[in-house]
């Protein structure tokens, strides 16, 4: 998994990346975008798929329904908004996750985190605030099917609103 990108992320054929990707639940290589170790982006990055940042991003990083992974070599000076955010590198900016944010032992984060679930490994360097609400629904999108007048209808609602919207279908 991700093996063909290994040298672009780590600058070498580091096999530990396979393990990292499994641990971070990143999808197959073909389904992920990559900002390689030698790449610097200034501006807004808007991703509609899981994305790995091994280079530098300055501006904003948005992947609302996807996973953003900041590799060890990643240097981000930007606010990050995503469904799942995992950080091994350096981030200066505010982080908003709709599902989970995890900071590994190698991560350095200066900024505020807002997410229902936040995990941090000992060794991580963090300065800022963490806004947690474990009861808050995650924002994953589920299809809901309902039957009305003999017709099957499908509507997309957010998982936390099933009770309200399903009853009104």
């Amino acid at each position, binding site marked *: 998994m991700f093996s063909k990108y290994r040298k672009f992320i780590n600058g070498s054929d580091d096999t530990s990346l396979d393990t990292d990707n499994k641990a971070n639940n990143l999808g197959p290589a073909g389904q992920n975008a990559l900002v390689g170790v030698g790449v610097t982006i200034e501006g807004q990055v808007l991703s509609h798929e899981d994305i790995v940042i091994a280079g530098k991003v300055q501006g904003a990083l948005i992947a609302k329904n996807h996973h953003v992974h900041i590799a060890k070599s990643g240097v981000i000076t930007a606010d990050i908004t995503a469904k799942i955010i995992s950080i091994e590198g350096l981030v200066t900016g505010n982080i908003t996750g709709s599902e989970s944010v995890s900071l590994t032992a190698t991560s350095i984060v200066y900024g505020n985190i807002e997410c229902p679930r*936040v995990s*941090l490994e*000992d060794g991580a360097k963090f300065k800022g*605030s*963490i806004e*947690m*609400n474990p009861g808050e629904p995650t924002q994953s999108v589920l299809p809901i099917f309902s039957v009305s007048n003999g017709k099957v209808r499908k509507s997309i609602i957010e998982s936390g609103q099933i009770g309200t919207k399903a009853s009104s279908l």
Partner: protein
Amino acid sequence: MPQPPIKPRATLTQPATKLLPSSLLSELLGRVDTDKRLVILDMGHAMASTVRFFGEYRCQLNFIDLCAEPFIVTPDHELSHNQRVILMREVLRLAPSAKIDICLFWDVFNYLDDAYIKALIEALEPYISPATAALVINPRDSRCYLPFCRYGIADQDHFMQIDNIGAQPTVFARSQRELNNLIDYFAIDRGRLISEGRAEYLLFENRDIDKTDRSMI
């Protein structure tokens, strides 16, 4: 005869971690209204166990590691009190309307001289309410050695302690009475002895208390 499993030896890169029993942590946590959103200020290094523990609550967890600030290593003795207060406010950077429910000072007072403690206490004042509860770890008396550790919350009855790596900053060891006199509107409500020559103190806002003669331990 079966041999016991061989335990891996601790290496220099793996700091020692241990659980430290606490008598006062449950009292501190028992005082706060966990039905509302809590505001917690942790003045130590961000610890996994603390994030995990408060992950069960609706809360804002603020980590401000004063020991990582340059003025701990090289304090500027030329600064006026007001300049120190401004410096502390810049480090705290709390929302103006925030009211702290739990303040975890850990052992930070031991790394600040008297002038910086007074500045920190004044800088914190807008965020303190009568409902604020605070926790401090201090040497049992001013002659005791202070272990160089970082602390977190493991559960209601235990701290998590991890040895720090690197040089320990200058320690300003104080007796309980000396500390109580420095923390102005806070007062040490009670203290308990913990291991390695240390004590834990529970602090509440109390502006009316007579601090001239108190001995809680």
